[in-house]
């Protein structure tokens, strides 16, 4: 194996190396990685906050997600319970152990069974937070960690996402910036998994006809919360 490593890297060096030495190439790489400069981004996302939120809602809706606006986190319990009832789904949700969701007054809807942890196949509905919303394409950034098991994003048929309005950014680059800044404990900022999710699961593999609900959720419902404690949503 290490023979192959040397063969591949040596072959590349031979073909790419500069006659006067590779210092310039090394410098170029170091600079690029340290600065991680932005490339041009679509102007449509670079708009003031109210339009940015409107763009997020429009693009997410176009991608077949549904978006419901709520005044605060306290309204999440009712919104979830009512959604399940209106869709004839069982009154049980699997939730992420996210501090943001800890403030949800589930007890006001005693008929709803709420459990916490990673999802299994018998969990039809999940409720999670979101690290960020990205306006340019109506995309959610979901970040794995103790407060957000990745299976919650994929196994349940219905995925409900609580997104504080203040976490809606313009572009993918803005979301990466937020994540880079999160490295609080001095450790790496890079989580095991970052999911960029745009609408529910779909496939076009049968005669190129789009159908929703291939392997992941058939339905993605976003609860856009006006006034939430955003620090905890960052997870």
């Amino acid at each position: 194996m290490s023979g192959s490593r040397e063969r591949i890297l040596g072959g590349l060096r031979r073909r790419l190396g500069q006659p006067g030495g590779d210092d310039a190439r090394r410098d170029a790489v170091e600079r690029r990685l340290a600065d991680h400069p932005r490339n041009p981004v679509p102007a449509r996302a670079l708009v003031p906050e109210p339009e940015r939120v409107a763009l997020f809602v429009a693009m997410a809706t176009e991608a077949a997600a549904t978006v419901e606006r709520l005044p605060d986190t306290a309204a999440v319990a009712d919104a979830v319970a009512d959604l399940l009832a209106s869709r004839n789904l069982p009154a049980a949700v699997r939730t992420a152990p996210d501090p943001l969701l800890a403030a949800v007054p589930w007890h006001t809807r005693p008929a709803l069974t709420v459990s916490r942890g990673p999802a299994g196949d018998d969990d039809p509905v999940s409720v999670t937070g979101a690290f960020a919303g990205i306006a340019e394409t109506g995309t959610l950034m979901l970040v794995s960690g103790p407060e957000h098991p990745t299976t919650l994003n994929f196994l349940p048929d219905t995925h409900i996402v609580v997104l504080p309005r203040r976490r809606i950014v313009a572009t993918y680059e803005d979301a990466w910036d937020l994540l880079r800044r999160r490295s609080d404990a001095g450790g790496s900022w890079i989580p095991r998994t970052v999911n960029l999710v745009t609408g529910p699961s779909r496939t076009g593999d049968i005669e190129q006809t789009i159908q929703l609900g291939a392997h992941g959720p058939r339905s993605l419902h976003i609860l856009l919360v006006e006034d939430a404690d955003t620090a905890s949503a960052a997870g």
Partner: protein
Amino acid sequence: MQPSSRHFPENARRALADDRLRAMLDKSASGFRLRRRMAADRLPEFEALRDRGRDIKDHTLAHLDLYLERFEAQVRAAGGTVHWCADAAGARDAILAICRAAGAKTVTKGKSMIAEEIAINDHLEAHGLVPVETDLGEYIVQLRKEPPSHIIAPAFHVSKEQVAESFRAAHTALDPARPLDEPSALLAEARAMLRRRFHEADVGITGANLLIAETGQTVIVTNEGNGDLTQTLPPVHIVLASIEKVVPTPEDAATVLRLLARSATGQEFSAYTTFSAGPRRAADPDGPRAFHVVLLDNGRSALMDTEFREVLRCIRCGACMNHCPVYGAVGGHAYGWVYPGPLGAVLDPALIGLAEAKHLPNASTFCGRCEEVCPMRIPLPAMMRHWRRREAEQGLQPAVTRRGLALWAWFARRPALYHAAARLAARLLRRLARRSGTLAMLPGAGGWTRHRDLPAPEGRTFRELWAERRTGDGP
């Protein structure tokens, strides 16, 4: 996958005679083309992003050794392992060794063209493992024991009736009388069958659309979410990627991703774009416990100092094949190896040898549409010409072509003789064609006249007509 590219002419003829196939190709490709156009028109920055995408890849390729080293260091820092593989056999061995060490029986797979390139499924099966494709299109072609016919839509060529047939044949535990007429019924059945497989799997193998040097992340793009279940549920996640997939930073990845979905399916963004680095962290409640990146060269680094280097910019969006009249007429299988269409016409000779793939660079009308739509601005037609030149240099053309060209070259170097011969031929053919102005048969031109008439020359050569026109006494 065993190449059969040397049989392109026969494969193509068979495909052209298959009406059902041609109807499917037409329907599928036209939808892709329309949606790509709409997505590109909707983004004013699209052309500028293509320039930037090209520049990012050119920069990365010029520093590929350094970016790969950084990528490896970051994967290790995150607790993963990188396996460097010079060729397909090396990659197969590496994957089998990881599966064995994990005591694996079932292996789920996300879509990966590299997996096709190294024929990993056959290898795993030969060693007693059960590989299960989880992308719906891949699952369908796996059941049909076929290779994919398109790089982003593996079952591009399959009708829903054929899918139903395959499901009935494979899912024998289900009621044989169940209705399977609707695509929704087919999807529901596949979803249920594959759900079990996701949970049973001991190892999940995904491909990678991108690798990111700064973070050691591997990136997959799917619409179904199958890749995510493949890499989240089993204890071991193997990423299978080729060396040219790396980009420097997440910012650079963002630019490439803005181009990918729009060029491929015409979506603003695919449903799931997933960045993975290392195994689950100590406090993570789910995710794999081991993370391996199998990094394949297989002839790519040797392209670095050739006129084919730029094909390494390819992001496998499939736009070139969706817009190719030849691909649209014969489909992906005719090309006889993993990468069909204009991309395959350039890449296949590099990876499996020109002797095997020499027909592919010739399977082109040189209409230029592939280059027009390629998000990475790869000069595909020019590269096909380079291959044709090499084919001639290596004497791989049929003897009659070589002798014909040699004869033509002999005349072309003697202008007076050439014009005299051309004048004679023009008049002779005119005479032969008589009234109709066309020739139904001409010795030596059977390749043309088998399918259509040959228009006869006017009776005078181009130079004669041009001379008349210059002096003003022409028509």
